[in-house]
């Protein structure tokens, strides 16, 4: 065994979360493993429905209901969160692991004053007096740069702007100085200027408190420059995992490349044609055989439709699950072949065509 010093704060192993619904078994998270060390930031990126939110909620044990089937391990500080009794989990919530949600309008209680919401955890976990709690609430609101904190503790959420409300959510999450913070699309509902500041605030608080953070987002622009490592998810699986620099500079998985290419950038001239991704994310109940991304992938070959590529890690610690990784000669060959054949998902990238339905094998894949 490794020494305690080397042990990651959070070690997730082969995590599966499946939901039984009327239509069948929905595999929202399907075999995810990763490590997160103390003080580090991990970005989890993917489209809607890729399983990124279910993943963080599974680790937090927030997926309730009889139809949820979870397997695997999520070891946090030496104990497996997934097998912990709920009574012990409530001790961990807020105190050891905290969460910031996407929508600050609905994650705050509209009929409880800000001050009480901010100190609820502290009063529960540490049993501090009302007076101490008040002082602490003011301190916490000041740490997230809320102006006139003494006044704000007496306000209700509707009296604050969206950005200020999200700062309050962060103050609540930070109240007990957790070791790990899950931020699930914390800025998606906000303006760019407010988003920038909320992300800065999270970063500042994180380094001051040496807290680890998982930043879940659909926007690769949000995680660039703000994370140590990035996981790209597709259809409940990790398709690429590497250090932030490697993800951007040595993009290996076609899905990551496609996400990056579809983002408009300010350094491109106006009216630059964007490379679209053909098709839609797969139905998580009836998954195609082979690689889940193959019907939408501009490089897909016969093998991709038949055989699922494993997540392979190279000597730089860069992992990707693809038979024709971006940047290889095989990849270029596959592109040329598909372009010549006029495959729909290849044309979507080459010409920016809009393609909704993509065939699930190669033979019918030409336009």
């Amino acid at each position, binding site marked *: 065994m490794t020494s305690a010093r080397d042990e990651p704060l959070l070690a997730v192993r082969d995590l599966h979360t499946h939901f039984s619904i009327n239509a069948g078994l929905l595999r929202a998270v399907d075999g995810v493993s990763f490590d997160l060390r103390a003080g580090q930031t991990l970005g989890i990126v993917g489209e809607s429905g890729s399983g990124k939110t279910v993943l963080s909620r599974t680790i937090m044990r927030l997926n309730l209901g009889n139809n949820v089937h979870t397997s695997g391990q999520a070891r946090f500080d030496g104990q497996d969160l997934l097998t912990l009794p709920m009574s012990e989990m409530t001790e961990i919530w807020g105190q050891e692991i905290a969460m910031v949600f996407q929508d600050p309008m609905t994650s705050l209680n509209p009929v409880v004053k800000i001050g009480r919401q901010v100190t609820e955890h502290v009063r529960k976990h540490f049993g501090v007096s009302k007076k101490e709690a008040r002082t602490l609430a003011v301190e916490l609101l000041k740490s997230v740069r809320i102006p006139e904190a003494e006044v704000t503790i007496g306000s209700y959420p509707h009296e604050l702007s969206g950005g200020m409300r999200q700062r309050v959510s962060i103050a609540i999450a930070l109240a007990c100085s957790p070791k790990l913070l899950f931020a699930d699309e914390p800025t998606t509902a906000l303006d*760019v200027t407010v988003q920038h500041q909320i992300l800065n605030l999270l970063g500042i608080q994180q380094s001051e408190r040496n807290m680890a953070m998982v930043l879940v987002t659909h926007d690769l622009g949000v995680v660039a420059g703000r994370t140590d490592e990035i996981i790209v998810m597709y259809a409940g699986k990790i398709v690429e995992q590497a250090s932030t620099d490697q993800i951007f500079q040595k993009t290996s998985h076609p899905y990551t490349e496609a996400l990056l290419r579809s983002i*408009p950038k300010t350094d491109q001239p106006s009216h630059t044609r964007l490379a679209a991704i053909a098709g839609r994310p797969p139905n998580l109940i009836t998954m195609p055989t082979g690689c889940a991304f193959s019907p939408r992938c501009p490089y897909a070959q016969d093998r991709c439709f038949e055989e699922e590529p494993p997540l392979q890690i190279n000597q730089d610690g860069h992992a990707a699950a693809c038979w024709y990784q971006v940047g290889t000669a095989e990849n270029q060959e596959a592109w040329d072949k598909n372009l010549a054949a006029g495959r729909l998902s290849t044309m979507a990238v080459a010409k920016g065509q809009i393609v909704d339905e993509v065939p699930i094998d190669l033979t019918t894949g030409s336009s």
Partner: protein
Amino acid sequence: MAGGGKAHLRDPESVLIRAEDLVVEFPISQGRVVNAVSGVSLDVKQGETLGLVGESGCGKSTTAKSLIQLPPPTSGTVSYLGTNLTSLDEKALRQARTDLQMIFQDPISSLNPRRKIGDVVAEPLRVWGPHNKDEQISQVDAMLEAVGIDPAIARDKRPHEFSGGQCQRISIARALVLNPQVIICDEPVSALDVSVQAQILNMLEDLKADYGLTLVFIAHDLAVVKNISDRIAVMYLGKLCEVSESNALYDAPAHPYTELLLGSSPVPDPTINLDITMVEEEDLPSPIDPPSGCRFRTRCKYATDRCAQEEPMMREVSQDHYVACHHPLVSVPEMAEVSA
């Protein structure tokens, strides 16, 4: 910011829409008003895409909606093809609006969940004709095809059977079915994933070319606005800050607010030097009681006493690039100082 003045307006003969001195006020309790739009002048040429960009609450949607008199501005004029829309009676205005259509931010809630797609898209035709059913169906089908939706499959389905991106395309089809001149796009991609956003942006470009459309495109994401726009107007708290040809705005932003927006825009590149320390203490000031002089001064790092006293006027900094700022970030030719 502040932006009084009309130096950025072009020859009225050459533009399709010209809005002058738009003011929109919403009365609230105790006789106070929300100054949503305070003297904005804009023009859009035929075939041009005007991007309107700014934070939530800056009045960009209100400005765009007041162009089609939804609601009519408190004061100011909007002329479309030489007609002053603010002076039209209800009947004439309804007729004029067939030329000016709108698509909204949330694609799912902008379609009636209980109606079939074929009926949703045919609704404008039921009002304005042709009233012949077969003609309606063939026009609806042509429109759905133009937005990449198979009419044979979609006609009898309902909105919940489509993804967000497809619903947005159906709203675009509905907006286009009356063959309008102008489409006002109110944050049409803000609620979509990046991959779907790329589809919609490409599609709007194609439709614009195919149908000779003029677009007014509202968004808070600068990269999105740049991608689609020919000309961009930056708004702050009910006023214009900067108006420019779109590439010039990004190459050399002249207004400190544009600089702030650009610096906040997430860039998918970790090597970019990110300012990770900036956290403003203050919120956006209230449009009920906006700051005197330049409205941006309370958040501006270059602000001086002059900014509190005197409202800056629009002036030209280079060709087709105008800024309303006392301390612009680029040098201003003396001759270009133009007052309202």
